C-alpha cells in the first residue's frame, strides 16, 4: 500500500434528498431542488450549511457552484469541480474528486450533489426533432440510434451472446430493484410491485431490453457531505468512511462509431482492480451493493467486471433470491435504485450505501461494514467506490 490513497482519509457525514417525482412533475425549479437537497444534507450532518466550502458534481449539472455559494451565503468557496464526461458514470467519480480535495487540503467540507428537473429541461430519453448530426452523432442518428438505450444495447447484446446468458439474468436485476422499492416509501414505484410475468409481458424498448430493464427518468436532487476522517466523529450520524474509489475506462473505450476494442464491457475492466487495490477488500467482503441501472444488462456486466461472479456463472447467480436484502448472497439496489426508487442520476445509490452502514435502510442488511457503489456502466469514464464502517479502518 502506497501513501497515495484515499483509504480512510475522508468520511460521508451527511446525506440529503428532496422528495422524488416522476419526470416533469417537480413543483420546484432545478436550482431549488439542489438547494433543498444540500440543506437537507447539512441538517442530517447537524451542521450550519455555511460550513460548506466546496462542491463536486458530474454530467454537466446545471447548478453552478458559484451561484450555490452565493445563494447559500457561504463565507468562501474553495473547491468547484465537475467530473468530465460519462453522464451517470461519474457519480462515484464526483465523490472521489471531493474526497481528493478534502484529503489534499484544498477544502474541508465538500458537497457532492446532483439535481434534475426534466420538465424544465429536456429529457435524456427523447431526441430533438429534425436538424443535422455531426461527428459521432452522424454515425448513429441517421440509423435511428439516438437515445442512451439505443446507444448501449449492442454492447449488452454482444455480451449476452458471447456468454450465452438467458432472459432470467436481466429479469432478476429488475425484480430485485422493484422488490426493494416496495419497502421504501420514498420510491416512485412504491406500491407498484413487479412480477416475473409482468416483466416478461412488458414491451420492448430496444431488444435486448424491455420496459422494466430501463431506468426511469425523474425529478429531484440528492447531496452528500464529505469531511476529513479525523473530524468525522464530531457529526450527528455514524460516519461512512471512504475505503476506495476509482474512475476511468479501458484502452480506447471512447473510440468513435462503436469501435472500442473491448466492446462487450461495462467499461470497468481496468477501473475495478484499482478500486479493490485502494480499498483493501475483495468482492466477497462486500456486504451490500448499489449498482447503477441505466439498463439491466449494464448492471450484469458491472457485477462480472467487479468480480462478484464470472460471466459463465451469470445464469446461476442472477436469480432474485441472491439479490434480495437481507438474506441474499449479494443484496443489490436496496432502495429500489434507478429502476424503482428514483433516477437521481445514480446519486440516490451513494445515499443508500451510506444509509446501509448507518442501519437506516428500508431494506436493511444485517450489520454491514462494507458498502459498495458502482456508478453508470457502459459509458466512459465510469467510476465506483467502496465505503466502510469505522471497524474497517
Amino acid at each position, binding site marked *: 500500500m502506497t501513501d497515495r490513497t484515499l483509504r480512510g482519509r475522508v468520511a460521508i457525514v451527511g446525506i440529503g434528498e428532496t422528495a422524488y417525482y416522476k419526470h416533469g412533475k417537480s413543483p420546484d425549479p432545478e436550482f431549488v431542488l439542489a438547494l433543498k437537497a444540500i440543506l437537507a444534507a447539512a441538517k442530517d450532518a447537524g451542521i450550519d450549511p455555511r460550513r460548506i466550502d466546496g462542491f463536486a458534481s458530474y454530467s454537466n449539472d446545471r447548478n453552478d457552484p458559484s451561484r450555490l455559494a452565493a445563494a447559500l451565503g457561504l463565507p468562501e468557496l474553495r473547491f468547484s469541480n465537475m467530473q468530465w464526461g460519462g453522464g451517470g458514470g461519474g457519480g462515484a467519480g464526483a465523490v472521489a474528486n471531493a474526497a481528493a480535495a478534502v484529503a489534499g487540503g484544498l477544502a474541508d467540507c465538500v458537497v457532492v450533489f446532483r439535481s434534475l428537473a426534466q420538465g424544465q429541461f429536456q429529457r435524456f*430519453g*427523447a*431526441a430533438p*426533432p*429534425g*436538424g*443535422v*448530426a*455531426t*461527428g*459521432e*452523432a*452522424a*454515425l*448513429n*442518428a*441517421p*440509423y*435511428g*440510434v*439516438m*437515445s442512451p*438505450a*439505443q446507444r448501449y*444495447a*449492442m*454492447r449488452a*447484446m*454482444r455480451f449476452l*451472446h458471447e456468454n450465452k446468458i438467458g432472459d432470467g439474468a436481466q429479469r432478476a436485476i429488475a425484480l430485485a430493484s422493484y422488490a426493494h422499492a416496495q419497502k421504501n416509501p420514498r420510491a416512485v414505484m412504491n406500491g407498484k410491485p413487479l412480477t416475473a410475468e409482468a416483466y416478461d409481458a412488458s*414491451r*420492448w*424498448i*430496444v*431488444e*435486448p431490453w424491455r420496459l422494466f430493464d430501463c431506468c426511469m427518468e425523474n425529478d429531484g436532487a440528492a447531496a452528500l457531505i464529505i469531511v476529513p476522517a479525523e473530524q468525522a466523529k464530531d457529526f450527528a450520524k455514524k460516519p461512512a468512511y471512504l475505503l476506495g474509489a476509482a474512475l476511468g475506462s479501458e484502452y*480506447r473505450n471512447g*473510440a*468513435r*462509431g*462503436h*469501435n472500442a476494442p473491448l*466492446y*462487450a464491457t461495462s467499461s470497468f475492466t481496468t477501473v475495478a482492480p484499482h478500486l479493490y487495490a485502494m480499498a483493501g477488500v475483495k468482492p466477497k467482503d462486500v456486504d451490500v451493493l448499489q449498482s447503477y441501472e441505466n439498463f439491466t444488462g449494464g448492471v450484469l456486466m458491472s457485477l462480472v467486471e467487479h468480480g462478484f461472479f464470472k460471466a459463465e456463472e451469470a445464469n446461476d447467480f442472477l436469480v432474485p433470491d441472491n439479490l434480495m436484502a437481507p438474506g441474499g448472497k449479494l443484496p443489490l439496489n436496496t432502495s429500489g435504485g434507478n429502476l424503482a426508487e428514483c433516477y437521481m442520476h445514480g446519486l440516490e445509490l451513494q445515499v443508500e450505501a451510506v444509509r446501509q452502514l448507518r442501519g437506516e435502510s428500508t431494506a436493511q442488511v444485517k450489520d454491514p461494514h462494507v458498502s459498495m457503489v458502482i456508478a453508470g456502466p457502459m459509458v466512459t469514464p465510469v467510476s465506483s467506490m467502496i465505503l466502510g464502517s469505522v471497524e474497517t479502518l
Partner: protein
Amino acid sequence: MSYLKPGLPAPVAENDGLDAPYWEGTRRGELMVQRCKSCGTWQWGPEWICHKCLSFDIGWVQVEGRGKIYSWERPWHPVHPALKDQGPYIVVLVELPHAGNIRMLGNLLGDPKQQVRIGAEVEAVFEPHDDAKPPFTLVQWKYR
C-alpha cells in the same frame, strides 16, 4: 426508398473536415476509411492521429463493403418524431475483417422482425437521400 422514414437528423461532415472524405465517398458509392500511411493501422471512426504510431499522416482508402455482424439491436420505442409510425427496425454493428476488424454501424435491410445472426456475412448497400438538404448517402447492410 429509405429503410427508415425520412426526417431523422441528416449527417453532415464536421466543421473541421475530419470525416468529410467518408461522407463524400458514400455519395460516390465508395466506402472510405482511415489507414495510417506510416504504419498501416486501420482506424475507424475517424481521428486526426493514428492511435498506434501517433503519426498525423493518416490516409483514406477505399475498402470493400462486406463484413460480419458483430452485434445488433432492435429498437421498438420511437424516440424521434420521424419514427413515430416506423415500428421496429434493426441496427447492426458490422466488423470488417479485411480492414483490421474496424466496425461500422447501419441498418439491416429486409424484414424488421427477422432473426439476426451474430457472425453472419453481410454486404454494404448505399442508400442515397438525394432530396435531403444537404443530400447525403447512408451505408446500409444486407445478408450476403
